[in-house]
């Protein structure tokens, strides 16, 4: 895209008699028809986005070594009966929450040890949410150096069991995670523990195991993500501080379950078992919702739009559908299912598909309406969760260590109240997980064969990066073209102006003007730089405000806004106002054009960067920013045009200026989805706070790219030309 800009600007100065090279001519053509081209590209981008569900491909297992379902399941009803005893034990404990906190880990550890595995307790404190703006970037997860004063009661205890593989060298491991709330165990959580136990006890006996298996019974008292992430941190980053030891010693008596045979279960050491090949988090949810089949929901989104390797999802999906007969679901935005727009589009596509097939039987690109709507709703959800940058479950913690992990949420078709149902359910779920482990066990390398960058449109369909990049590319292509054309126009007009001035007046004054003509964008660049600096300051302001924790969301929001405005005024005070014009001979009605082209260039670079960090954010951001960049026109300038056009352009600009402002857009969406009554200014603060807490890059995008772009939009709109 950039060579075009360059080619265009060189094309203007070339001698017209010499026929320029084809690439230059293409550049000139694009720039001279920039409005048409950009409109076409933008429309094509939107259409491509809408058509994405149509281009979804069926998933396939890419890594041959996986061989899912090729071996018979070994999980027997005897194992399941054993597991059912554990369920009864846990449910039957009937303890106060204080006792349960210690008693349940003891029970689980007892079972693990009886099955013949290594066991240890992992104790951790909940971590305060902190602001690491570049956390996603530094790669190594923060080791949490801040020591806080915790009472011994606030510990949570993970119980970890490790099976050493008889055929392995102990360099690789598979992790099973079952989160449960130690203060109040529900039937579902007890069932998931039992499920893990049944598989775990089976795996201690099998001969084919080549990777160690770790079972982490995660104490989800402070949230399941916190417990998993604490364990992973201690697993990967050893702590050698003396303070930690001391702390452990003091709390030893009260914090840990007492054992009869204490030398068997270790509390002070974290045993390890090689690098992790995959992580499986599973939960049983007792929804009491009648369906015809047991249902398996897959959650895959980790922080900042990272996804596990598609092969992991493929195995689970394959085994669940073809071996265990489960219904597999991925998340979708349910309100989109009733959308009239999607229905119309689906109808049109189906009709086109039918017509095409009647013309030539081999043209098969239409899909049924229901499929389209379903795919679109799933795709939207996939995109939304990736864009938010917040993981959808505790599997997200694994991705920070480059481990592929997913959450499997199994819910039974009817309520589990009789034992036969429970046994059948456990057997089915257990066989699914056993099959998955067996597949992963076959892996020779890390997952690498299949896709990392994709959107799901159903459990067995995906849109790969090669396809969805097209939609984004088409949306973004107008930016460099418009920037180049504005810049060239401004330059050409300017040189005309200067020539006329020279004709009329003596030539002495304008030498410098001519000489530095090609550097005239420096002033606009300065404005853009100052605004982006302001964006950085605004995104750091909440850090300052966190020093006063007793503020309510609304006051925080208000003070944030006020501080932002103050810092903007301050910056303008010391670094100059955006409208001041340095060079005298610059034709004033072109200053805004240079500013606009600079703004577009900055937005283009920002979107390009964001598309690499988190594609979904860039895609959604482009839908907002690109029209803003293309449409913006100084209001004063517009009034000179015809009446209808004035009205249209003004209305477009003002509505874009409203929608483009992040808080306004957020509150507008919230009011739209939940009604006007529930909206308050503090909501935006809460939302931003959640982005922070998860170290989402989306927050940085909003602060460093979107907000400055919006402000520049307003500057150009109100330009006194």
């Amino acid at each position, binding site marked *: 895209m950039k060579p075009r800009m360059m080619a265009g600007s060189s094309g203007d100065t070339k001698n017209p008699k010499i026929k320029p090279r084809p690439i230059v001519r293409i550049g000139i053509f694009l720039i001279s028809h920039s409005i048409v081209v950009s409109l076409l590209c933008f429309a094509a981008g939107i259409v491509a986005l809408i058509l994405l569900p149509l281009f979804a491909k069926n998933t396939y297992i890419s890594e041959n070594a996986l061989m899912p379902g090729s071996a018979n399941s070994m999980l027997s009803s005897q194992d399941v009966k054993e597991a059912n005893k554990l369920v009864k034990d846990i449910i039957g404990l009937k303890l106060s929450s204080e006792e349960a906190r210690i008693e349940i880990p003891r029970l689980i550890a007892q079972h693990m040890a009886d099955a013949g595995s290594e066991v240890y307790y992992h104790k951790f404190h909940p971590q305060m949410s902190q602001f690491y703006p570049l956390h996603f970037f530094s790669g190594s997860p923060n080791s949490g150096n801040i020591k806080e004063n915790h009472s011994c009661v606030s510990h949570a205890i993970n119980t970890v069991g490790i099976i050493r593989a008889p055929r392995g060298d102990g360099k690789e491991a598979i992790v099973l995670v079952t989160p449960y709330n130690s203060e109040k165990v529900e039937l579902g959580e007890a069932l998931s523990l039992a499920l893990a136990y049944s598989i775990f006890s089976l795996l201690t006996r099998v001969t084919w195991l080549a990777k160690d298996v770790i079972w982490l019974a995660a104490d989800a008292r402070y949230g399941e993500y916190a417990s998993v992430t604490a364990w992973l941190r201690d697993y990967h980053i050893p702590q050698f501080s003396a303070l930690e030891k001391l702390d452990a010693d003091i709390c030893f008596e009260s914090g840990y379950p007492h054992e009869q045979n204490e030398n068997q279960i270790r509390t002070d050491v974290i045993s390890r078992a090689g690098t992790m090949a995959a992580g499986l988090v599973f939960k049983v949810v007792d929804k009491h919702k009648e369906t015809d089949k047991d249902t398996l929901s897959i959650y895959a989104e980790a922080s900042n739009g990272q996804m596990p390797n598609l092969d992991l999802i493929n195995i689970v999906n394959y085994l669940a559908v073809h071996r265990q007969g489960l219904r597999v679901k991925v998340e979708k935005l349910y309100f989109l299912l009733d959308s009239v727009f999607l229905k119309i589009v689906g109808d049109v596509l189906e009709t086109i598909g039918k017509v095409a097939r009647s013309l030539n039987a081999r043209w098969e690109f239409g899909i049924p309406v229901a499929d389209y709507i379903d795919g679109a709703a799933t795709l939207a959800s996939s995109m939304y969760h990736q864009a938010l940058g917040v993981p959808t479950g505790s599997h997200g913690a694994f991705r920070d260590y*480059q481990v592929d992990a997913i959450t499997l949420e199994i819910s039974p078709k009817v309520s589990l109240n009789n034992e036969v149902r429970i046994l059948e359910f456990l057997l089915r779920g257990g066989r699914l997980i056993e099959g998955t482990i067996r597949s992963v066990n076959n892996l020779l390398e890390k997952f690498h064969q299949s896709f990392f960058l994709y959107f799901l449109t159903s459990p067995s369909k995906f849109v790969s990066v*090669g396809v969805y990049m097209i939609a984004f590319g088409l949306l973004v292509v107008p930016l460099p073209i418009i920037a180049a054309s504005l810049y060239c126009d401004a330059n050409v007009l300017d040189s005309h102006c200067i020539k006329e001035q020279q004709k009329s007046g003596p030539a002495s004054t304008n030498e410098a003007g001519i*000489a530095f003509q*090609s550097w005239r964008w420096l002033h606009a660049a300065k404005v853009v730089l100052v605004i982006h600096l302001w964006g950085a300051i605004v995104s750091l302001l909440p850090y300052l405000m966190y020093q006063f924790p007793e503020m309510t969301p609304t006051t925080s929001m208000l003070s944030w806004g006020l501080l932002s405005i103050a810092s903007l005024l301050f910056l303008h005070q010391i670094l100059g106002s955006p409208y001041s014009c340095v060079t005298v001979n610059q034709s004033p009605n072109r200053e805004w054009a240079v500013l606009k082209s600079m703004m577009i*260039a900055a937005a283009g670079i920002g979107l390009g960067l964001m598309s690499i960090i988190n594609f979904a954010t860039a895609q959604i951001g482009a839908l907002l920013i690109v029209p803003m960049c293309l449409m913006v026109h100084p209001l004063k300038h517009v009034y000179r045009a015809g009446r209808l056009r004035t009205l249209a352009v003004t209305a477009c600009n003002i509505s874009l200026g409203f929608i483009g402002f992040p808080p306004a857009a957020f509150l507008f969406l919230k009011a739209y989805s939940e009604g006007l009554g529930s909206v308050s200014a503090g909501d935006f603060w809460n939302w931003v706070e959640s982005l922070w807490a998860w170290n989402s890059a989306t927050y940085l995008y909003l602060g460093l790219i979107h907000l400055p772009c919006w402000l520049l939009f307003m500057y150009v709109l109100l330009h006194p030309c």
Partner: protein
Amino acid sequence: MEKTRWFWVWVITSLFFRLVLIYFPENLNLGFRPEVATPLTSLRRLAEGYWLKQSSMSPYAGSMYHGSPMLLSILGPLTVKRIEGQPSHLMCSLLFVVADLVTAMLIRATGQTLQLAYSQSLRSLNLVSLLESSETLSAGDIAALVYLWNPLTIITCVGSSTSPIENLLIVLSLYGACLRIAPLAAFGWVLAMHLSLYPVILIIPVILLLGYGPDAPPRKLFLQKNSSENGNSPSCHGNYPCNEVTSQEKLPLHPFLWRPVMHFMLWASFWLFYVFVLCSISLKQHGGLLEMLKRTHGFILTMEDLSPNIGVLWYFFAEVFDFFRDFFLIVFHINILFMILPLAIRLKHRPCFLAFVYIAISSMLKSYPSVGDSALYLGILGLFINELAEMKFSFFLFCGYIGVSLLSPVMHNLWIWRGTGNANFYFATAIAYACLQLFSPDMDKWHGPALVCFCPPESVFQLLQGWSMGLNRRGNLL
């Protein structure tokens, strides 16, 4: 006065800004970035070498350190000196800040010399009207400010790499040559060559500077001017021998002065000898000079460390078969040498600009480039602000530099930390960076063609080809 005051305000602010950044090195972690610290310039490696030396081992043991032993003696003690509660490499960083300041001042002084010579030659060509266009700050001031405020310079300075010192020596040699101080020029050149080998090609511009003096319009212009004046002047009709008289008066053509050049040569051999003696004393027990040359200059030439950097060679040599390795090593190094002579002929009347072009080319094709190199040539670029005024692609280049410098860390992150990308991602930014560097010397409409005619495009094409081969071999790009 007003302008000078502003200049100093900006200089002091830039220094203050550096000091603020130095105070938070752990947060920035720049010393670990491949863009900032190469195997040659990394201060961490230097500290390691110093530690080895203190424990009476060869500093080159274990292939960690590849710099000069003299740098080890100067910077080494500073790396271990800790002040309680302060960041670890504080002393070194302070030294680098000083080096940056001195470099900027030298660039400024060079710029003033150039400006003076420029106005003299214009005056002798009767083009005084052109002189009045120099407004606001002078070229030297602008170049110094560009150097000090260039984000790349700041990153290099803060990111604990020894590039500021190398840059200082290169600029020192140019400054000495501009003022015709042969010992200084020789000192800068010898040390710069000793530290990073590539400045060895700067001997040509330095000799031209010493011989002809600073940049001037082409000789042709003077000759034309003289002949036309002689032709038109009414006093020169008939058989008067006024031709010679006027040319004696008018021709400010400087003949090539051999004297300073010979001085330079003598001083250079003296300094070289001196440096070698010092090095051999310091490495007496550890293999002496030969070992040093093998581990420093040999390391540069044989491209042993293939860890990724912003250059283009690491990728190529990671891909190439072992039995072609020597051949391609020669090809790539000759690539630089090929361009020396044609450019020298073309630009012999403008030695400073020639030096800039050489620095730009070597920073593109050197084996371990870092952003410190581009910081240097972008700073020197500021000296030619009058020519730059007509630069066509300034806007495009500006956007390109910003885009690439932001993209490169992101791609690196994607490849190394997140594991969703691969080497091709990072190398793509390296190629984009190399292409940008191709354009920046191309700014001058007279000298652009001279450059483009020679190797860079074709070598970049070679690399592109290599890249696409790599893409094919690696199969799954995504």
